[in-house]
Every structure is written in structure tokens, then in C-alpha cells.
């Protein structure tokens, strides 16, 4: 091949490569400008939705009341994240604004150095009040409707102005937070943080998922522990009772209380001990007989599950990884009583539609 032909050929290769890079840059910048659901959401008493959207690194809390377009309620400061929104009134949402989980790898994180504020915003005018200004990492908020107060789950949470110096072994705790900002610790947990917090309607019992070695954790026991559902009386800390099957070693990773709490829906592994990839599904569970009922056949791992007030729709988030290993979240709901099965709530598209129409 002569030199001219070679130069032509490699110029074309360079040109095509340049075109591919340009196309990539255009798609990347378009994607950055697109609203992205962070996986954090809340469900109101009449199926209102509050969810957190990230755009160009900025978190915004949106509320979707009825059939209207979603409207922004609160925009976080840059570098701050909005977590754990929860409806604390018909048109009031309380949430955590935090600097996020420490960036260090597990085992080296200094949670006392991050900040987490609890704030309340009203949907109509976006008026915001700060209920709590704390150090540490707040992972979950739960609204106790009966007593109009919040249950807070936090790691190394403190209201001290100066943080403790140096590495502190992981410890989480549950607190009661009143509307005027008073904090009262209920109970702490070494090495673990309880998950899927639920509260009964009267506000007396808390339910949560914990590994069964939570009372005496050792490095060895952590490998053998099984995640189970526990019930705790808020007024009686000693009474932490297993709710799920005690003789089972199959972990439970998500659950919701149904009705008065005698029935539950929990997520577990269907092919435990059979080898291969775990197959997750959500199944009914009767507390009185301690027996599992029918599967819902979601057939996938879900997170952040919530049942609506009527007990007809189970809402949950599915997480998947894109090719560049960034996570993407989708909000779904599943008809637990009827035939409609699963449907995806295209909240990102609804926000774009809302913005286009306004």
C-alpha cells in the first residue's frame, strides 16, 4: 500500500474515532442534564409521592400530589444530598439533608465528620424549617403519626458542635425526634444499622431487620448471622423479639407490615442452598402461624418497599447498574390484590413533561 493511501486510511480512522468521541460527549452532557431518580422516595396517605431527583449533581425534592405534574419542593445545596423523605402531614414532607456517607472504604469511615440536618418543607410554598442540625450520618426517618414525632436511625449521630477525634467503631442508634428538635436515644446497635424500619399505627412497636447476632457481634459471628425481622416496644427496650421464622437461616432483606401487622410481606431468597445466583422474591407471611404464604413473583431484588394506606399497591425501588457501573434506580408498584401486577412509575419522564408544559 502506498503512502498516500495509508495516510488517507489512517486519517479516516482518526476522523471516525473523533466522531465517536464527539457523539459520546454529546450523549454524556445530555444525560447529565437529565433528571435522575436517586432511589429515595416517600408515599403519602392518599398515594401522594415525594421523591428525590438529581440533576448535574444537585438534589431536589419533588412532590407529586394526585394526577398533577410533580413540583419541586426543596433544592439541596451543592454537594449535599437529600435522603429519607417522609410525609409528616398531608402537605408536609420531612427529610434529611446530609453531606453523604463518608467516602473512605468501610472500616475507615469517620461518620462523626459528616453532617445531617432534618428539615421539614411544605409542599404548597416550599417553606422550610430545620428541625435538627446534627453530626453523623442519618440513614432513615420514620414518622410516628400517633404521637406526631419522628424516629431517626443514625450512625454516630450527635448534636455536639465539635466532632470526636479519630476513628470510632461503627455504631448506629435509634432516636426519638420531636418537632421542636428534642432528641432522645432509644437504643444503639454495635456494628449494624437496623433496616426496613416500620412502626405500628399506635406508635408503640417498632419493627426492623437485624442480623441475629446483633446483641453480641464478633468478626466470626458476622459471617454466620442471618437477617431476621425483630419487633421492639419503644417503651421497653429489653423486649426485642424475633417476628420471622426462628429456625430458618434464609436472610430477609426487606419487609412491610400489612394492616394491623398480623400479616407481612417480606423479601427473601427463594433458591437458598441450591447454588447459583440468588433468586429474590417477596412473599406473604402470617405472624400468628409463622408460615410463609404465596409469592408475589416479582422475581427480582427490590429495596425501599412501602405499602400504600389501602394495602393495595406495594411500592418499591429496583436498582440496576449501567455499563459504566453507575447505579440507576426505578420506582415501581405492584398490585398485591388485583391482576395488574407490576407497573413502572416513569417519574423522570413526568418531570420532563411537567417542565416542558410549563
Amino acid at each position: 500500500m502506498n503512502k498516500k493511501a495509508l495516510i488517507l486510511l489512517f486519517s479516516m480512522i482518526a476522523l471516525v474515532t473523533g466522531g465517536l468521541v464527539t457523539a459520546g460527549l454529546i450523549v454524556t452532557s445530555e444525560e447529565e442534564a437529565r433528571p435522575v431518580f436517586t432511589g429515595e422516595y416517600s408515599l403519602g396517605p392518599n398515594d401522594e409521592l415525594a421523591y428525590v431527583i438529581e440533576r448535574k449533581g444537585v438534589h431536589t425534592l419533588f412532590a407529586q400530589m394526585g394526577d398533577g405534574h410533580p413540583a419541586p419542593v426543596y433544592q439541596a445545596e451543592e454537594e449535599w444530598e437529600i435522603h429519607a423523605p417522609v410525609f409528616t402531614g398531608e402537605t408536609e414532607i420531612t427529610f434529611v439533608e446530609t453531606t453523604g456517607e463518608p467516602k473512605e472504604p468501610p472500616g475507615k469511615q469517620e461518620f462523626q465528620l459528616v453532617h445531617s440536618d432534618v428539615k421539614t418543607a411544605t409542599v404548597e410554598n416550599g417553606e422550610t424549617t430545620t428541625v435538627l442540625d446534627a453530626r453523623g450520618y442519618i440513614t432513615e426517618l420514620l414518622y410516628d403519626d400517633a404521637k406526631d414525632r419522628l424516629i431517626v436511625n443514625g450512625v454516630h449521630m450527635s448534636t455536639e458542635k465539635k466532632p470526636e477525634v479519630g476513628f470510632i467503631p461503627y455504631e448506629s442508634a435509634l432516636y426519638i425526634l420531636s418537632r421542636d428538635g428534642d432528641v432522645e436515644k432509644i437504643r444503639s446497635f454495635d456494628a449494624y444499622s437496623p433496616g426496613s424500619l416500620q412502626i405500628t399505627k399506635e406508635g408503640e412497636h417498632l419493627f426492623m431487620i437485624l442480623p441475629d447476632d446483633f446483641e453480641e457481634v464478633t468478626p466470626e459471628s458476622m459471617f454466620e448471622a442471618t437477617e431476621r425481622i425483630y419487633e421492639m416496644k419503644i417503651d421497653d427496650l429489653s423486649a426485642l423479639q424475633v417476628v420471622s421464622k426462628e429456625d430458618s437461616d434464609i436472610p430477609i432483606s426487606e419487609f412491610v407490615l400489612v394492616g394491623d401487622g398480623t400479616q407481612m410481606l417480606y423479601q427473601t431468597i427463594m433458591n437458598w442452598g441450591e447454588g447459583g445466583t440468588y433468586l429474590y422474591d417477596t412473599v406473604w407471611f402470617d405472624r400468628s402461624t409463622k408460615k410463609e404464604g404465596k409469592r408475589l413473583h416479582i422475581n427480582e431484588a427490590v429495596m425501599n418497599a412501602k405499602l400504600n394506606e389501602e394495602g393495595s399497591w406495594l411500592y418499591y425501588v429496583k436498582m440496576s447498574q449501567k455499563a459504566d457501573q453507575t447505579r440507576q434506580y426505578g420506582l415501581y408498584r405492584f398490585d398485591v390484590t388485583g391482576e395488574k401486577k407490576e407497573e413502572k412509575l416513569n417519574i423522570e419522564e413526568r418531570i420532563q413533561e411537567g417542565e416542558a408544559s410549563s
Partner: protein
Amino acid sequence: MDHKVEEFVKKLVDETDVQKEERDGLYNKWLNQVYRIRDEYLKQGKSLEDATHDAMETFEKEGKRRERLAQAIPVRKEWLVLLAGVGFLFTIGQYLYVLIGEKVALFHLLSNIVGHSVVLFLALYRPFLRQRKIWLSLALLFHVLLLIGNAAVHPAARGDHPLWFIGFGGMVLFNVILLYRTVLAYPKDSRTKTHRRILHLVNITLGLITGIPAVFVYWFMIAFGMPAQILFYFFVPLIGWILLYIAQVLLARRYPKAAVSSLALTVIMLGLLWWPWLAGYFQLEIGFGPFHE
């Protein structure tokens, strides 16, 4: 007299591994070189017969022979073009598949294009390099390492498409075959070719099957919290192995048997890549993490 020169050059060309379609070009090039040398001798006043004889001798003696051997093309040009062509389709296809399907631009994948281009360049532009065998071997090595490295960076980019596995596996296999063919090709009259082939075969095979897994294992160890200093155990044997390999190649020209014997050192050197694990197995103290527990 010219007939004598033509016979001489034809014999030399026949000794090389040059493909049929390129023999004419090489034949004419070398014939001209011999004639130029003969013209010089004629100018010096030698007779045509002496000048022809001396020219042929000089052509051989002056190291042209070595250059000629270096020009030997061990693999067919078409194969290299095929490898590069499939590579371009694979890389661009994968990039666009992810870009359109997931709206994610995997820019790192485009670095494969550098590897494909180098292979394509060496396939199409031949007169450029004196040591083309070495350059082609390095290009093929670079190409396959880029392919494997890029596939490993973002495993999700594989997609779940069986075509990806067929394309990727086929290309790596084809690339490795071409690499072996390039490195193991020697002129028929080379006395040391068997020893040198053994040398390359052992070094490349052991290098690939110990080096690439070692990269992944060390990377995992660091990702799971081991200090970066652990890479000391990777780079020292790796550099040692590369230096040893170069020394063996140089040694093999004169002392082929000694070079082959020194392969025992190669095994030890590459084994050292796995020293932290071997030390752990034999419960030896080496000073890092869990290995001495």
C-alpha cells in the same frame, strides 16, 4: 554473469518466509542492491567476474543478510488485516451499542482503536522497520493486552449478548495464535531456531498464564483494602522477568543451550509474582496482611 546474480538473489529470497506476492518486490530490491555493489567494484577497476563475485560476497557479509531476515514476514498480511478489521468492528460496535442502548459513553473502549491501528499499520506498511518481527510481536502483545484490559475495566460493558463473548474470545485466540506464529517464525537455515522457539514459547505462555491473572488478583487485593505497597511483589518479578527474557534472547544467538537452561530462572521469576500466596501456603513471614497468619 547477470544470470549468476539472479540465481544468487533468488536463492536468498527463497530462504525467507516472505509471501509469494511479495517475493518479486524483495527480489528486485535485493538484485538492485547487488548490482550497485558490483558497479562500485567495477569503478574500482575490477573485472566483471571478480566484481560480481565480490559483490555477492559483500552483500552477504555486510549484514544485509540480517536485514533480509528481519524483513521476513512471519504471518500473512491478510490475517493481520482481518484481526485489525474485526477489532475495529468489535470496538466501534460495542461502543455504539452501549452509547445508544444505555446512553453511556465508554471512552476507554476507544483506546482499543490504537491497538487495531498499530496492527493495521504494520500489516500494510512494510518497508518501514528493520526489526519488523520484534515490532509486530510487540504490537500483537499490546493489542491483546488492551483488549483484555478494556474488557476487564467495566465488566458490565460486556452486555449479556452472546455475540460479545464469541467476538471477544475469538479475537483474543486469533491474536494469540498470530503472536506465537510471529515470534516462533525463523528462517529455515537458522541453526538455533529450535532453541529460540522453545525460549519464546515458554516465556510467552508462562508470561500470559501467570501475569494476566496476577494483575487481576493484585488489583482485587488492593480494592479490598490491601496497601498499594503490595504491588512491589508484582513489579519486581515482572521487571526481572522482562530483563531475563531480553538476556535470554541475546544469549540464544551464541549459546542457545545455556539460554534454554536458564528457563528455570524464568519459572522462578514468574513464580515470584505469586509469592504472597505461595508464602501464605507455606506459612512464611513476608510482612503483609493475612498471608502470614
